[in-house]
């Protein structure tokens, strides 16, 4: 009996706070939106190519970002997991440190580098590689650079943990049986580290779908992603109904991707022998 009471006493405050301040508002505003204008705003979003393109841009930017992150993050994670260097802790600090710096500050750093009069253009002009400054700021390229910078630590950390759990002897065994490094990678390392890859990709994809500061600062006023669009509908167009619809559609799209990713993880885990890394 007293155990039950203690459990209730410990879990109640958080449960109560989440129900009152999180679950109830999320559900209430959805019902309220539907009561006020029915599904009109949802229909407007899903039939107007202007809005559909914003959703498309958001998904494409997030997919590109995730792909680049995987290409950069995997080798880095492998190196971190396998290195015996004394500098490993320093490297970990360098990777984690930007992770703890505000997205506003990091975007500002990229603005100084990528701007029309920025350091990159100054350098390229001085070297003579270009004659006119490159237009990078306020394009999707700048947003992708910013997002990759923002999310690299997440990807690296997700995969490093999993690779650390793979026995190094498996790689030795493969190479002693005549596999070249490439084959060892595709036949041994990649299948065994898939859970980490999937959890890393899921995480960074979700985070780039919902990123707000980076697209706002590096994309500028005419570059629209779902989250900056919510803000614009609230503060510029004062269309709260549409802002609601965009918010809930974004949540739904992310949920859909999470379900697909989870199903993929389940089927892959089955194939590689039910490892519980993810």
């Amino acid at each position: 009996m007293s155990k039950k009471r203690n459990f209730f006493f410990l879990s109640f405050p958080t449960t109560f706070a989440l129900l009152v301040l999180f679950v109830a508002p999320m559900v209430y505003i959805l019902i309220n939106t539907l009561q006020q204008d029915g599904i009109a705003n949802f229909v407007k979003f899903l039939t107007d190519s202007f809005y559909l393109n914003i959703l498309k841009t958001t998904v494409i930017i997030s997919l590109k970002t995730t792909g680049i992150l995987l290409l950069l993050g995997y080798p880095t994670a492998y190196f971190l997991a396998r290195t015996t260097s004394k500098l490993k802790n320093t490297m970990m600090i360098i990777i984690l440190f930007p992770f703890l710096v505000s997205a506003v500050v990091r975007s500002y750093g990229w603005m100084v580098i990528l701007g029309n009069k920025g350091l990159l253009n100054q350098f390229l002009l001085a070297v003579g590689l270009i004659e006119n400054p490159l237009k990078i700021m306020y394009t999707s390229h700048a947003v992708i650079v910013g997002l990759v910078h923002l999310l690299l630590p997440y990807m690296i950390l997700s995969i490093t943990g999993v690779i650390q759990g793979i026995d190094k002897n498996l790689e030795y065994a493969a190479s002693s049986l005549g596999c070249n490094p490439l084959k060892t990678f595709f036949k041994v390392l990649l299948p065994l580290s898939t859970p980490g890859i999937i959890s890393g990709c899921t995480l960074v994809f979700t985070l780039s779908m919902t990123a707000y500061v980076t697209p706002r600062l590096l994309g500028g006023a005419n570059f629209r992603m779902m989250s900056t669009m919510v803000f614009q509908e609230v503060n510029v167009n004062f269309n709260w109904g549409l802002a609601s619809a965009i918010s809930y559609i974004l949540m739904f799209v992310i949920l859909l991707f999470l379900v697909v990713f989870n199903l993929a993880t389940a089927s892959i885990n089955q194939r590689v022998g039910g490892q519980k890394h993810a």
Partner: protein
Amino acid sequence: MHEDRVSLFPKIVTILVLIFLVAPLVVIILASFSPTVLVVFPPKGFSLKWYANIFTSSTNFLSGLGNSLKVAIVATLIDIVLGVAAALSVTRYTFKGKHLLIAFFTSPMYVPSIAFAFVLLRVFSMIGGVPAYLRILLGHSIIIIPYIIRNTIAVLAGYNWLLEDAAASLSANPLQTFTKVTLPLIKPGIMAGALLSFLYSFDEAVLGSLLSSPRFITLPIRIMNYMEFSFDPTLAAISTLLIVMSLTSIVLMERLIGLDMFLK
């Protein structure tokens, strides 16, 4: 020989990644000492005037800093109490649906901040009269709670509960057992989680954007607003201060519990 060749490719990528990660931060630090408005390299001298600007001109960065600290400190303190209790409840007892409860506790992580921020904005405007400080504080208390709970659960997973039984058999009451035995052992983990949550709240800009009022604006929003009108290195100076704060935090975290907690 063979092995060295295998690790060359990951090594090169790692070096490039590390350079890419620190580049904008190094640029900001160098830019903060720039004597000219336009940042050029190599710099044409050295100046501290942008740091002076933070204090002297009407940037409002200091009031923003004060507001952000007020929100982050209070939200973290509230969530340490709530989160540690919640983490204890799901690690101390075994029961059906435990995973569901953990999923519920960490659910704010899976909802886009912009959606949650907008929902709160609507709810608070329906209620009316809720000051911006309270709006942001309540919002932040919800979005950082998963981080404290996850970290504490991770620490508690390695905790030997027999120690509590031992304390109880030596006639310590439950409160004594917790404060004298369990808490000291899990404290470093809680502190690290709290530090992480504090920084999250301190740097948060989405709820801050939608829920602030002209009278209460947090630092990240102040910085973004400043950027829309001027782009001088005052931004670099305030950013450098924030970078130093983060660097201090990570060194502190490394000392507290090591950095392996990030690999789970």
